[in-house]
């Protein structure tokens, strides 16, 4: 059993490396083996090297950050709420981020919109979590408050889009999710924040091995089970906001990556952690590869590609191993 799980992690690691390769080196003209070999040469100032350094690597890094963050955030929320439908955007983040993005397009002509999305995500999730209450916290309340805020703010977003028809195309395009450039937070800083949160999550994750027990069981030394839940929810809000900073709003990954990982490796969170982050990153890297190459030279918005490949992959796993999700 244990060997199988480690084997799964290794396979997912290779899948991740494969998708990373595709995302960075492959293009419309092939699988880019020569590009890959050339990338090992130092001081290469050719056009290819510049493309790699300035465009491809940063894109791939953002894809990884977004994939890992969303997958982890989804895993936290699904476990804490014991609800397989829980997704990172439950806490009002998607609409908050959306509002931030739409407003930035409206007032700043879409410069640094992902940063405004990040701000909107942080504000709305804080709002939802505090409405759900820290002292008399309940996950049901959180989900319902999040739902209400999502609906309210979504209506607001639609209003803004409808009333500004000249900018509505760029708003809709950006809202579909893209690996983006922003000048306010450099890739280095993004990576730094990412590694800090990832490390933090890695330390915390085995605690979910205890939280997977029925919450009705009471142990005298565990008085504040809610505290852990709130902790994990805040953590997932941070992770999701970070993913907005990297890639805008990307639905679906946060639901399917944790669920598929569970189907692959079961519910030992120490193994699940690795399978989950590799899978989340792979899905987005692969989606990025497709979004660039599928109808070259046009780019399909990443969020749409994620939906196109995510849904079939998810249904495939459901038909094979969906039993594991039944109650």
């Amino acid at each position, binding site marked *: *059993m244990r060997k199988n799980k480690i084997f799964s992690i290794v396979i997912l690691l290779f899948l991740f490396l494969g998708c990373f390769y595709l995302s960075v080196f492959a293009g419309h003209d092939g699988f880019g083996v020569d590009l890959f070999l050339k990338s090992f040469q130092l001081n290469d100032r050719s056009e290819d090297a510049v493309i790699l350094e300035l465009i491809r690597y940063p894109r791939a890094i953002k894809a990884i950050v977004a994939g890992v963050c969303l997958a982890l955030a989804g895993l936290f929320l699904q476990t804490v709420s014991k609800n397989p439908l829980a997704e990172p955007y439950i806490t009002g983040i998607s609409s908050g981020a959306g509002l931030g993005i739409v407003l930035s397009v409206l007032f700043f002509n879409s410069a640094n919109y992902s940063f405004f999305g990040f701000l909107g995500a942080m504000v709305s999730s804080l709002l939802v979590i505090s409405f759900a209450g820290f002292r008399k916290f309940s996950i049901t309340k959180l989900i319902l408050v999040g739902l209400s805020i999502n609906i309210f703010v979504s209506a607001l977003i639609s209003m803004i889009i409808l009333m500004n028809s000249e900018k509505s195309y760029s708003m809709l395009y950006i809202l579909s999710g893209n690996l983006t450039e922003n000048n306010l937070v450099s890739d280095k800083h993004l990576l730094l924040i990412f590694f800090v949160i990832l490390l933090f999550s890695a330390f915390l994750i085995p*605690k979910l091995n*205890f939280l*997977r027990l*029925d919450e009705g*069981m009471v142990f005298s030394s565990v008085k504040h089970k809610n505290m852990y839940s709130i902790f994990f929810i805040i953590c997932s809000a941070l992770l999701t906001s970070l993913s907005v900073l990297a890639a805008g709003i990307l639905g679906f990954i946060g639901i399917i990556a944790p669920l598929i990982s569970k189907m692959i490796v079961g519910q030992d969170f120490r193994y699940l952690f690795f399978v989950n982050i590799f899978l989340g990153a792979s899905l987005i890297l692969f989606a990025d590869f497709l979004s660039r190459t599928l109808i070259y030279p046009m780019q399909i918005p990443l969020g749409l590609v994620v939906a196109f490949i995510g849904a079939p992959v998810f249904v495939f796993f459901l038909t094979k191993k969906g039993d594991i*999700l039944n109650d």
Partner: protein
Amino acid sequence: MIDIKNLYLTFGDNIFFEDVELSLREHKINVILGPNGAGKTTILKILTGILKPDKVSEFGLISKKIFYLPQKISYPKGLDVEEYISSVFFKDSMVKWFLTKEEKNRLDDIINKLGLSHIKNLSMEKLSAGELQKTNIAIGLLSGAEVFFLDEPTSNMDLINQIKILDMIKKLTEQKEITAVVILHDLNLAESYGDYFIGITKEHKIFCKSKEGFFTKDMLKNIYGINFRITDDGERVYVRVDK
């Protein structure tokens, strides 16, 4: 003896428990009996600290390590028995990636002791109701709890599994490992396994009695409001509803 004295609980304007007194015998099976709505689960929730009473002057459980197992629980999917039971080791420390050797040994001991070793690598979905309940008891034991609160631990089980679980709880109390506080519905099972009895009436009055004091016509009528016929064959007492 664990004593609870002067316990008051109100729901809004309704007084539920008024000046209630009860005591639990240590290393025994304490059975809570009573009709639906009397407050069996409520008293269990107070004893385990889930529900705060309005007032209580003496609460003997305060220094005890407890474990409460609710009547219905859900099981995480995709785990085998050993993994499920080991969940409890992640309870206390904030950061813990690996089980220590000592914890692994304790896990093996408990699995052997409860007779789960032949199914320890079986996935949880394949277990019977009785086997599932044993895994929960294993979790309680590994948590280091001294007092076990079990809300109808044998509901949904056939007679053989009921007896297996109760035998196991009995053995654990006799070995002085745990004190058990158990809600049961079957009076005859309660009579054969219980050592000490806490009866709750529909009016939320509580009676704590030994076996002899509890299985009398008057006492049972007091608690359930119907007549019982009690037969004593010298070895044990049988309870029947008197029609």
